[in-house]
Structure formats: C-alpha cells, structure tokens
C-alpha cells in the first residue's frame, strides 16, 4: 500500500472515530448507569465513566418489581402489533397498485401520499385530541391504535411502492398467462416474494410507534395505559427521586434490539426516504 492511500485511511479513522464516540456516548453512559450501584450516583468520588463497587443487577430487579414497566411493555406490544396489522392491510395493496396498475397517476398519487407523512403530529394532535374526546376514547389504548397508522401508512405505502417496482413484471405476466386472475397472482405470486419489503414495513412501523411521544403524551393520562415512550418519562423521571439506574435499563431494553434490526434493514429505509432515486 502506498503512502497516500495509507494517509487517506488514517484520515478517515481520524474523522469517523471521534464522531462515532461522541454520537454513541449517551448509550455508553446509559449502559454504565444501568448496572451501577445506586449509592454511586451522587457520590462525587466515584467516576461516572466506570463502576466503583462493580456492576449490579439491582436496577433491573427494581425496574421489573417496583415499577409498572411490564404493563408498559405489554401496552406497547399490543399497540405495536395492532398498528402493524392495520398498516399492512392498508399499505400492501395500495403500494402494489400504485407501482403496477395506476401508471403515471400512480406516481403522482404516491408522492401525494408520501407528503402526508410530513404532516407532523404536533400539527394534528389538538384536532385529534378533540376527536378522541368527542368519541369518549381518551385514555384508551384504542385511541393510539386508531391514530398511529396515520403516519405508518403513508410512509409504508411509499416504501412498498418502491419495493414492488423492483420485482420483475415478467413473473406476474407468466402467472397470468397460466390463467391466474390478477387477484390470485397478487396473493400467490407477488406477496410471497415481497416478504423482505413487508418485513421492512413491520420493523419501521414498530420503530415509529416506539418513537411517538406527542399523541401518547396527550391522549393517555393514567399510568396503567401508558406506553414505553411516555411511561418512563412521566412516571419514572418526574417522580420524587428518579431511579436513574432503573430508568436506563428501561430505556435500553427496547433500544438495543430495535437499533440492531434498524441497522440490518438500513438500505431499504434509505431507498424509502430518497424515493428509490439513488438505488
């Protein structure tokens, strides 16, 4: 290897390394804090970067025994599964039709649907709060199940539209020549090979549900109906004496698997955000 190439590589490390450490720093602090002994938090002789008395499972035990964390996990799972179901039922057929059947109109309609993803919850939460109150659904899981697809469906439809375009048309033509109806072709041929796209939508929708704060914070008022995204903040942080160790465990448990999944499906998300223009 010549000197110039070596210097370029060194430069890459020099730029990427420090930034990666800074960006990941909060997660390092979270992991250390999660396994720290409770007495060390306010002990100025203990370094916050490491353990003084060694790691402990005490915070994990506290989280699961002394807080409603399992209830929030359950609520989040129920809402997540319901939202993913609704999203797939609405977005898979729409994404397919926009990619295949609707031609140029489909492209414009697809862009239109995508733009609705940009309409933020902070613009819609008050009218939807009004609707939820009028329907007497305040403080129910149903209110969130109903509202969350408003941002998962537009993005998923757009993502799937791009995905279906990458599936060769010949496959469907062959099925139809063999006498299958369009609907049958869709169910028997198209959906099975779309599994990776559908999986992407599942992960993305779940991630959006876990990221959502405004609706959950506005609609839900009782501890028993909270989700992870608001419960940890409202009930564990705003309490009298925050149990920082347990709070970090609470934050890390859903974050780690989601981050790994997200990383694995990254390329598909990018294609979604850039409209597949840079594949």
């Amino acid at each position, binding site marked *: 290897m010549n000197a110039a190439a070596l210097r370029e*590589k060194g430069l*890459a490390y020099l*730029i990427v*390394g420090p*930034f990666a*450490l800074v*960006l*990941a720093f*909060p*997660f390092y*602090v*979270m992991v250390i*804090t999660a396994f720290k002994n409770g007495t060390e938090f*306010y002990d100025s002789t203990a*370094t*916050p*970067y490491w353990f003084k008395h060694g790691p402990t499972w005490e915070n994990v035990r506290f989280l699961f025994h002394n807080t409603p964390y399992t209830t929030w996990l359950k609520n989040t799972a129920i809402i997540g599964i319901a939202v993913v179901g609704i999203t797939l039922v609405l*977005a898979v*057929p729409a994404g*397919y039709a926009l990619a295949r059947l*609707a031609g140029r109109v*489909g492209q414009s309609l697809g*862009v239109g*649907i995508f*733009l609705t993803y*940009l309409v*933020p919850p*902070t*613009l819609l*939460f*008050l*009218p939807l*709060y*009004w609707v939820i*109150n009028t329907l007497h659904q305040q403080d129910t899981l149903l209110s969130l199940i109903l509202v969350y697809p*408003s941002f998962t*469906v*537009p993005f998923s439809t757009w993502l799937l539209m791009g995905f279906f375009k990458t599936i060769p048309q*010949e496959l469907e033509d062959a099925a*139809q020549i063999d006498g299958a*109806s*369009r609907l049958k072709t869709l169910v028997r041929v198209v959906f099975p090979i779309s599994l990776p796209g559908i999986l992407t939508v599942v992960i993305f929708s779940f991630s959006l549900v*876990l990221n959502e704060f*405004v609706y959950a*914070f*506005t609609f839900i008022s009782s501890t028993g109906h909270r989700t*992870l*995204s608001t419960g*940890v*903040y409202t009930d564990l*942080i705003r309490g009298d004496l925050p149990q*920082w160790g347990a*709070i*970090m465990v609470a*934050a890390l448990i*859903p974050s780690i698997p*989601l981050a790994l999944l997200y990383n694995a499906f990254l390329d598909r998300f*990018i294609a979604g955000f850039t409209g597949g*223009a*840079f594949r």
Partner: protein
Amino acid sequence: MRAAVEAVAQARPRGRRWTDILERPVFLASVLISPAVIFIGALVAAPLGLAVWLSFTNATAGSLSGKYVGLHNFRTEWSNPQFKDAVWHTFLFTVFSQVVVLLVAGLLAHALLKDFRGKWLLRFLILLPWAAPLPLSLMGWKWIFDPSYSILDWTLVHLHISGPLTAPHFLATAKWAMASVIAVHAWRIIPFAVVIFLAGLASIPREVDDAAAIDGATGFRKFASVTLPLQLPIATVALLFGIVFTATDMAVVYILTQGGPPPSFSTEMVTTWSYKTGVESGSLGPGAAISLALLPVLAVVSIGMLLFAKRTEVT
C-alpha cells in the same frame, strides 16, 4: 409480453361479472388504493381541516363545541410576546441544529466512503442516535444533563476547565438550555443525514471521478466543482427532512426542558407553546391557532420535495 397477456385475457371465456371487473387494472387499482387513501384522508387531511376550524373557535377541553370567534385567537397570539418568542426560538433551534447536521454529516459521509477495517462498527455507532427510540434515548441525555451529578460537569471539573461551583447548569440556564436542545437534536438527525448523503454519494458514477482525475482536478478543487454540485440535490433532501423533523419536534424540547427554564423560557417552541395552551390550559382553539404557525414550514418543505421528485423523474 403485455400484448400477449391482453390477448389471453380477451380470449378467456366470460365468467361471472364481478371477477371480470377485477381484471381491469384501473378498477382493481382503485379497489386496492382507496382504503389507504380514505384512511389517510380521515386521519390526516380531515384533522388538518379541523385544526383550521378549531383555530377560529373558542373550543376548550371542557366544552368541545366552541363558538366561532373569527380571527380573535390569531390576533391574541400575534400580540402575545410568548408566541413571538416561540416562533423565534423555533427558528433558531431549526437553523442552528441543521447547520451542525449538514457540516458534520457531510464530513462523516465523505470519510465513510472509503473502505477501512472496523467500518461497520463505527457506522453502527454513528447510526445509534437515529435507530434508538428518541423518547427513551432522551432519558440518557436527561441524566447526562442532571443538575446535581452531570457527567459533563464532572468531566469539566476534573479536567480543571471549570470549578466545582461554576460548572454549567445545562438545562437550568437560558443560553445553555437552548444550546443543549440544539445539540441533542443535531445528535439525533446527524445519522439520518449521513445515510442519505452516503446514498447520494454512492450514486455518483465512477466515470465522473475518473474524468475529474484526467482533467487534473484533485483535493478541494475536485470537491468544490465536481462532488459538491453533484451532491447538492441529495443534501437538499436531507435538509428538507431535517427542517420538518426539527421545527415540528416536541419530544426533545419537552422532555429536556419543558420549554423552560423559567423565567425566560428560552426553549419555548411553537410546538410546546401550542401543547401548553391547547392541552395543559385546555384552550383548544388558541392552541390550534398557535400550531398553524408550522404550516408555512410544511408548505415550503413540501414544495421543495415536489421539485425534487419532478427532477428525479426527468433524469
């Protein structure tokens, strides 16, 4: 191929009528698309209209059917210093965090184009802030900024940069609070911008590089006159997303500062002010009027996105 399919479809003996209709692409398309469109209409378009209607009423959480009050809510907010502050803070928050995002993400994306050992690990670390759920990772920041035992203050004190009593109170002083929410939001958006930049850079054909090399363009010259212009469209897309995500964010600001610290409320944004007015004080009408201040941002970004979509269609 298409013609053959059509011919086969024509030749097929006529079955029951409804299955026939399902074979027509336009009909089948509308059947498949309309549930999604109706749902989005009911949960995005209609509430948007409802927000506009609410902003002309004095509806409260207690009495949902408010009376029409004309422009009253808008006039009140227009002359309300808290609202003006909120708009100004939102502007600062958005501009400063996006400048940081573009600079850092641009630098990182270029460095990540090269292949080196351990790149996947560094990429994973860089991606973490975007991949982890924000309301939960903010718990980490809340602890990092903790007034009594901030790890940042501990470090500053131990490096003798600041004394134990003069260490900054990150979320409790006006300037530091604003700097903190800007930094945290930039932290959140940087990974997103990096991956978008990388997608854009990867799409620049190798031939362009070679041509530039033959013409003798290297280093900064090449960057300024070849790479940058080619990267501009994708940078714009990242910026447009970043603007929407930042200007309309409530989680970062609310969880970290709740719009505070008092008495200056230096991080009160349009979103938190609208939440406080509409939900905490229960004045739905005025709250909706405040939130409509986000519409111009949304309009500008949407137009930008449409222009980009048009451009990629042509090329």
